[in-house]
């Protein structure tokens, strides 16, 4: 696919900006204590993701990317966050997310991760085209940060948020690093994400009605002694 | 022909002189202990009396009990036919070498022990397991000494050994010295002499051999006693054959028998004296010291073997 000159001129910096935003949001999530804001951040990540996809679509002129951008927007920026929001209220889960590790330490670890991700992606970045330079690194960093967040959170919901954040990182990689996966794959991935999310909802209620709490301690009984 | 005659002669000689030898030993001991000896012929009188007595069988004993005396006696008679006493190369000699000979003694012993256990009386079984223990420790020692001899003469056939040792006249082998010592201990142990056992006592707690005979009487007892005397004589004969073989002629040279026979008798007499001395000088060991005693015998035998390999002689 060819990218027009003026496209290169203004498009690439914009894409970089979005990438930076994504990473920033990931950091913010890592630092965030309150569940509600966490979900908002997730939504914003979805928005950025959608924007990125749209931008790539614009630059490369692949029509199906527009579709996937719309899908992303609908699913990741609007639907999922709102539903999570609802769940939160329905299940009366509120208050803070007590982390396993205290926040500053987590952030330090996060920074280390980012450096690691970049150093890892450096050789790859070197050989990528102008558009996608650096994207792999950022996507990888986002994924790892989200992973770290899952590890350091104690509430089921916050883990789910982390899970979705990982998903976002992947999406970003898929769209802006590889300029879009094959459509069929995109569809399958989206479908899985949807089903997964539905199942999550089912789960929350099951967990709720069995343990009447969303705290992970209830889910730590099966163990070898 | 001469061979067979000689064979018979030897067996009969041993069988009928064994009581005399044992009696001589008793007499000597008595003298050495300042007692009046009963005379060398006492054993014959004892045997005669026993044979004429009625013999009893303990209730609940099986055929083994009756069979044992004959079995033991037969075994010793066969042994008497194999050991070269009068002459080497007797016709029956090749039928069993030293190892088989030891096996033969073991067979006799096992019969005796089984017969003792057949009675099921406390002291008989007591004697039985003591006997098995002593023998079990004595056998390796005995074979070790015999191995030394057979390594020297590259043969395990007793008469070949004797013939070979005779060849090299008074060249005394260092290995054989140790062997001799070991053999002597074994002889004492196997024949229930002091310091391992006391043939003259019936003090239950210490006795071994006699304990097994408690139930025997009459002709059976006579056979047992007689067998024991033959065994003693045979051991002495083996000792002589191994360590002072001179004067045992090949079967072919029967002619020289008149010369060698007195020498042989002299040797026996000498052996009797030595035994008597030992038995007066030594004290009876506590039963649980006996294994150590046998261990020394085993050790000596082993050292004999080693010296053979070190010095090649």
């Amino acid at each position: 696919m060819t990218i027009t000159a003026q496209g290169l001129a203004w498009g690439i910096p914009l894409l970089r900006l979005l990438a930076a935003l994504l990473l920033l949001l990931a950091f913010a999530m890592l630092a965030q204590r309150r569940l509600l804001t966490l979900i908002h951040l997730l939504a914003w990540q979805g928005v950025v993701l959608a924007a990125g996809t749209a931008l790539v679509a614009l630059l490369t002129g692949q029509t199906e990317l527009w579709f996937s951008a719309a899908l992303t927007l609908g699913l990741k920026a609007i639907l999922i966050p709102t539903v999570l929001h609802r769940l939160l209220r329905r299940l009366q889960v509120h208050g803070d997310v007590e982390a396993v590790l205290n926040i500053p330490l987590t952030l330090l670890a996060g920074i280390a991760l980012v450096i690691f991700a970049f150093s890892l992606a450096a050789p790859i970045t070197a050989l990528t085209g102008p558009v996608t330079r650096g994207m792999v690194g950022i996507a990888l960093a986002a994924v790892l940060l989200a992973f770290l967040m899952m590890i350091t959170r104690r509430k089921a919901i916050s883990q789910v948020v982390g899970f979705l954040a990982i998903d976002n990182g992947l999406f970003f990689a898929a769209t802006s690093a590889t300029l879009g996966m094959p459509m069929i794959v995109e569809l399958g991935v989206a479908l899985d994400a949807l089903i997964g999310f539905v199942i999550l909802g089912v789960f929350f209620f099951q967990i709720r009605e069995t343990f009447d709490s969303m705290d992970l301690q209830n889910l730590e009984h099966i163990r070898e002694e | 022909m001469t061979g067979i005659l000689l064979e018979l002669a030897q067996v009969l000689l041993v069988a009928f002189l064994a009581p005399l030898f044992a009696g001589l030993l008793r007499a000597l001991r008595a003298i050495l202990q300042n007692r009046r000896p009963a005379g060398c012929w006492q054993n014959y009188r004892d045997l005669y009396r026993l044979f004429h007595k009625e013999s009893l069988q303990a209730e609940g004993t099986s055929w083994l009990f009756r069979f044992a005396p004959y079995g033991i006696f037969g075994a010793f008679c066969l042994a008497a036919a194999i050991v070269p006493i009068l002459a080497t190369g007797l016709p029956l000699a090749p039928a069993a070498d030293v190892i088989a000979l030891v096996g033969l003694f073991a067979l006799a012993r096992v019969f005796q022990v089984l017969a003792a256990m057949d009675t099921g009386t406390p002291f008989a079984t007591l004697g039985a397991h003591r006997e098995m223990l002593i023998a079990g420790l004595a056998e390796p020692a005995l074979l070790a000494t015999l191995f030394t001899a057979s390594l020297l003469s590259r043969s395990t056939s007793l008469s070949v050994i004797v013939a070979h040792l005779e060849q090299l006249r008074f060249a005394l082998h260092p290995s054989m010295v140790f062997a001799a010592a070991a053999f002597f201990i074994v002889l004492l142990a196997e024949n229930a002499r002091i310091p391992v056992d006391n043939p003259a006592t019936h003090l239950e707690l210490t006795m071994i051999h006699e304990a097994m005979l408690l139930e025997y009487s009459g002709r059976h007892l006579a056979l047992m006693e007689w067998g024991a005397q033959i065994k003693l004589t045979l051991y002495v004969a083996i000792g002589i054959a191994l360590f002072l073989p001179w004067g045992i002629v090949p079967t072919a040279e029967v002619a020289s028998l008149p010369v060698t026979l007195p020498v042989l008798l002299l040797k026996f007499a000498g052996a009797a004296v030595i035994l008597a001395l030992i038995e007066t000088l030594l004290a009876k060991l506590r039963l649980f010291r006996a294994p150590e005693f046998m261990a020394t015998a085993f050790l000596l035998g082993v050292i004999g073997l080693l010296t053979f390999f070190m010095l090649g002689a």
Partner: protein
Amino acid sequence: MLILLVLACAAMGIPLLALWGDGRRGAAMFIGFNTLTLLAILALAIQVLQDGAFTAGGGQFLVDDLSIVLVLVDGVVGLSTAWFSRNYMLHETVHWSLSRRRVRLYHAMFQTFLATMLLALLTNNMGILWVAMEGATLSTVLLVSLFRTAEGLEAAWKYFILCGVGLAMALFGTILLYFAAQKIMGHGADALLWTHLAAVRHQLEPQVMAIAFIFMLVGYGTKIGLTPLNNWLPDAHASGPSSVSAVLSGLLLNVALYAILRAKVLVDGALGRDFASHLLMGFGLLSLLVAGFSMLRQRDVKRLFAYSSIEHMGLATFAFGIGGPLASFAGLLHMVSHSLTKSSVFFSVGQAVQDVGSREIQRIRGMLEFSPLLGWAFMLAVLFILGMPPSGLFLSEFLIITSTLQAQPWLTPLLLLGLGVAFAGIFPRMQGMVFGAHQEGVARQSVVGIIPVFVQLTLVAMLGVFIPLTLVQWMQHAAQLLHG
């Protein structure tokens, strides 16, 4: 075309079961669909027999010597699981008083799972492969938590999160793969088609492929249950219905390993053999040892055999790591025999657990006494799992050890240690369960449900005594394929 038929047979069951799949009717339908699928698969196999590997659906689907073998296993195990599940679920429905909805859910999800398995094996698209794996995971999550017990929920949650994250990693790997492929094949739908990738695998960018493979290994490895990614596995196996445990061990692990093998072929082309094979050997050996030692202290029979699955998968992974036509062949044989045998084990265990009403090894005693046929089935299955002749596992382990001693002599002690410890872990427990006098309060039920055990064990014995020539050739070609 037959490929699509197979998938169709499997897929059309889903909605029907979802709608009417409750009670005896549901069970019957379940069996019916799987019979159809098996027939279709046999037809497919015959076609492959006639004209070798081929693609369909515009290259989107592929069946070759590697996949056909596993597809056959899928068909067989699927059908026997359906058969077993009939009596089993009738009993469970009463015991847990499951609602009709729940039973429908069970059947539908089960069918979905089987369908996605087949899809994963038959697709030619690495992306779709991932999608199918994810689908299989999602469909089994609800099966694991079917009884809504606290334990079941917890297990299902762990399963969901761990495997979800794992598969996310695998997806990242796939994306990177696509990223690398783009460079050569340009942007497009067929840049993820395995056949195309395999054609150009020598030109793929090494650094990208390395990272991609690591991500896929961690991702799919989580589903294989390679240590230290295996923590979900015992919980999920133990808490779900035994029919589910059977397919988890028998099919899911295989398919995950299959995905890694596909990736291995590509990465071997890009970076040469050592890279992938070292990783696989390491993970395999680690899993073998850790699982082996974990079994020494098990009290729960289903956990015990879950660990044994980890152990065997580790062994197979190790074999593929050793590489070479012989070892790869052995690995395949091991996969096949293991899924047939292990599912049989879980069938018999499931019934025993129902009879006794407890999963505790201590409480299950004297199976030979209270239900001789069940006892024999269980004992034979376990002996086969332990690699006693004439089990196919004996042959595969024989070949694996042989080739290990050829290739990596100094790893054999560890291998043997693992096998020995596993033996010491499983055997005495089996003894205690089979022999002796049983406790009272045992509700013996008919052994119709475990007929498949004998069928499958016969197949395994055949694999150990006399493998049909075509199967041998398929597996040999597959080994060649993996060997590159």
